């Protein structure tokens, strides 16, 4: 499949692997300083004009099983994991049916997307900052590790990330455990006002009232709070733009072809996997902004799609990266051309799994033996039921509110923290609603007015709570490679080793108890069912708990305080290779109960400063 090696003569300031959010932010920041950037993207270039986007939406409408990757079929040359590839893992027999080789004992239940825009194409866009204690898990609770930096050092970068993503939220209403709003926010406001609360969240909050639940011998009040999210809402007149310093002139980014479209979320209720009007942030926005920056008539940022990075060549003398080898394919199945990309600095932003994989197969950067290890997600245990009043789900963003009560507390030394988003799409995630419950009713022989009435009665009352459970890094949860398992380009596929620790399982046990209390108080009849035949399940004290993957791949190239305990420093620079940066959620040593991408974006801003400094310091070619 491979043709002659064609060296690329052109040399860039920076070569970035991956056109997802993290790569896009670095490209934008570098271009803002006049640097010339090449972005290599393994997947297809989905167009974000009206017709291109429409085709993606149509693909989703026409998909029988509507899952996150339905709108974004992979190319054979850049395969991707898909939740439809999950299957029970038998002892000693890995599941290699899909792209991943899942060694178990548990399944890693998440997917990601290999297309221009990366996984933000189908992310839900919840944009939570981490809590200060999440950065110091070892010193506070004796589990996990401490970050080399704290919340305060990241606060300004969080603000940059919230501007770039376009976050709607309300600092005043947002309650967080153990957090002093004064020092946490320092007078900040979000660019846009919070998304209106979903009707189900409003009813649930009203019905829960002042319920308190005991965890680890302490009573906790169940609170409901808005979720900050990367979705266009009403601009906030009090917002001060950190770039311009101006107050009250924030304007949301609409679609590329029509800036007036997508300026405001319209309630298409499908943010994951696709927002038809692009009111939800995707990395396309950042890529468009980056490509608009020019030197003379020429864009400072070049994006080459269908270009799969396959090897990072480093110098034997000083460890510096010399070039990146990649395979460019014109079409699926057509012979790929091997090429080289040269820059003065290199940034791998290919997603937590793919970045670790590329480093492992280049056999570099692993002095600490941490590369590929500490793979985490938020295993998400769902509980679901029917409320005794209609709550009208399946309208609006996937979630607008969550119960943040258990995001922090002394119990974290024994069991994992968790956040409880209130699902706004009924049983979509818990029971594949409306398709599967509908098929069951028809299968029971229902028809005519009885059927219609049953649909109206039951589906309007569906409620799901999500227990998104924190994981801490474990050396045994890891990505490895094995040359016996190759993709069609001949590149090793990721081998995933994954096991839920008792730290997580204790929370599953407590979670079921908490859910029962909430359901009882709120008038919800429990319909939750867990089974050993669910591809993702774990047992604890003789009981079975099922969970879903949350798409939050974290930890595989963690930063740290020195080269023996980590892959990069806190600027995401490889300890072993001075002109190589690893950007993405893989950098995060822990991530508490926050969806990781806002922190990932903040870190991309932080890394960009260091990269620019490097480039400016060494104006000569040899960086």
């Amino acid at each position, binding site marked *: 499949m491979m043709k002659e090696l064609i060296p690329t003569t052109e040399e860039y300031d920076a070569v970035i692997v991956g056109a997802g959010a993290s790569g896009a932010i670095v490209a934008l920041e570098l271009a803002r300083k006049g640097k010339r950037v090449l972005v290599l993207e393994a997947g297809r270039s989905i167009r974000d004009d009206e017709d291109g986007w429409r085709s993606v939406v149509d693909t989703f*409408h026409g*998909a029988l099983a509507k899952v996150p990757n339905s709108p974004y079929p992979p190319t054979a040359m850049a395969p991707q994991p898909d939740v439809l590839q999950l299957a029970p893992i038998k002892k000693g027999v890995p599941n290699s049916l899909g792209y991943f080789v899942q060694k178990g004992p548990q399944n890693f239940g998440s997917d990601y997307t290999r297309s221009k825009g990366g996984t933000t194409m189908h992310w839900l866009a919840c944009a939570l900052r981490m809590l200060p204690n999440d950065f110091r898990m070892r010193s506070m609770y004796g589990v996990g590790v401490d970050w080399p930096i704290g919340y305060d050092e990241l606060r300004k970068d969080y603000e940059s990330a919230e501007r770039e993503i376009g976050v709607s939220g309300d600092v005043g209403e947002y309650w967080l455990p153990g957090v002093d709003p004064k020092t946490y926010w320092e007078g900040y406001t979000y660019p846009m006002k919070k998304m209106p609360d979903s009707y189900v969240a409003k009813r649930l909050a009203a019905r829960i009232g002042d319920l308190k639940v005991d965890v680890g011998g302490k009573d906790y009040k169940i609170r409901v709070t808005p979720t900050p999210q990367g979705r266009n809402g009403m601009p906030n007149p009090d917002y001060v733009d950190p770039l311009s310093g101006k107050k009250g002139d924030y304007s949301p980014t609409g679609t590329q072809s029509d800036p007036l479209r997508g300026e405001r979320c319209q*309630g298409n209720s499908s943010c994951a996997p696709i927002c038809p009007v692009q009111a939800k942030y995707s990395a396309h926005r950042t890529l468009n902004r980056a490509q608009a920056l020019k030197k003379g008539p020429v864009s400072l940022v070049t994006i080459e799609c269908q270009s799969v990075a396959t090897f990072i060549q480093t110098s034997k003398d000083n460890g510096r990266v010399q070039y990146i080898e990649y395979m460019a394919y014109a079409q699926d199945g057509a012979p790929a051309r091997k090429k080289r990309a040269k820059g003065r600095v290199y940034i791998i932003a290919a997603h937590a799994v793919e970045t670790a994989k590329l480093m492992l197969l280049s056999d570099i950067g692993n002095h600490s033996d941490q590369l590929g290890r500490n793979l985490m997600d938020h295993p998400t245990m769902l509980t679901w039921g029917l409320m005794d009043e*209609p709550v009208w789900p399946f309208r609006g963003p996937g979630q607008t509110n969550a119960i943040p009560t258990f995001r922090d507390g002394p119990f974290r030394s024994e069991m994992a923290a968790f956040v409880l988003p209130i699902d706004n799409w009924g049983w979509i995630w818990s029971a594949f609603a409306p*398709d599967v419950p509908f098929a069951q009713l028809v299968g029971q022989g229902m028809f005519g007015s009885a*059927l219609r*009435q049953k649909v109206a009665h039951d589906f309007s009352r569906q409620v799901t709570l999500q227990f998104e459970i924190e994981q801490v890094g474990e050396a045994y949860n890891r990505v490895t490679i094995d040359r016996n398992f190759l993709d069609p380009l001949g590149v090793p596929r990721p081998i995933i080793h994954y096991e839920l620790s008792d730290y997580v399982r204790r929370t599953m046990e407590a979670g079921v108890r908490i859910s029962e209390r909430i359901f009882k108080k709120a008038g919800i009849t429990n319909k939750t069912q867990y089974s050993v035949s669910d591809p993702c399940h774990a047992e604890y004290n003789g009981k079975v708990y099922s969970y879903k993957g949350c798409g939050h791949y974290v930890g595989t190239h963690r930063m740290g305080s020195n080269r023996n305990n980590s892959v990069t420093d806190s600027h995401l620079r490889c300890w072993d290779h001075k002109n190589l940066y690893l950007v993405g959620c893989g950098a995060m040593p822990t991530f508490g109960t926050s969806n990781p991408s806002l922190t990932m974006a903040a870190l991309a801003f932080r890394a960009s400063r260091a990269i620019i400094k490097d480039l400016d310091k060494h104006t000569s070619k040899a960086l």
Partner: protein
Amino acid sequence: MDYPSDPAEQFLAASAALTAFEVVELQGTGMSESYWNLLLGRVGSAIAGEFLSACGSAFAKSRNAKELEAALGKRVMNDPKYGPIAQRIITLWYMGTWSAMPSAWSDTYGSCMNDVSQVVSPKAYREGLVWPAFGTHPQAAKPMGYGSWSYPPLVKVNTDAEP
């Protein structure tokens, strides 16, 4: 009750009774022709004709909607040959999806090459009646507007009585 003589119209009349949506609501989806043609393709015109006759006999025996449902239950839904076809027609209208015939049915009455479970078309998905049946819109289409999700839907849906 009246039953039309044209097969495509019979298909609509039977569909309305099976789904509890009005004929005009079904016509309003713009899908009737394509669903009727799809049915002909999947089960063949002979069996489709027999199916419509069975529905017709239920219409003939009934004086009102209630009696019609009872008759359809007996003559169509509970019939091993027609029941699975009726279930698939209901699913077409509600979900925009064709489900492959059960293998026991195909063993007896024969199958065709394109009898696979599928969303009929992106438009069929968008016109699914399941969504308005519980006060909402199809995901990724026909949005209800910024902030609408914060209140009960404007179009009233009766959810009170359990059937």
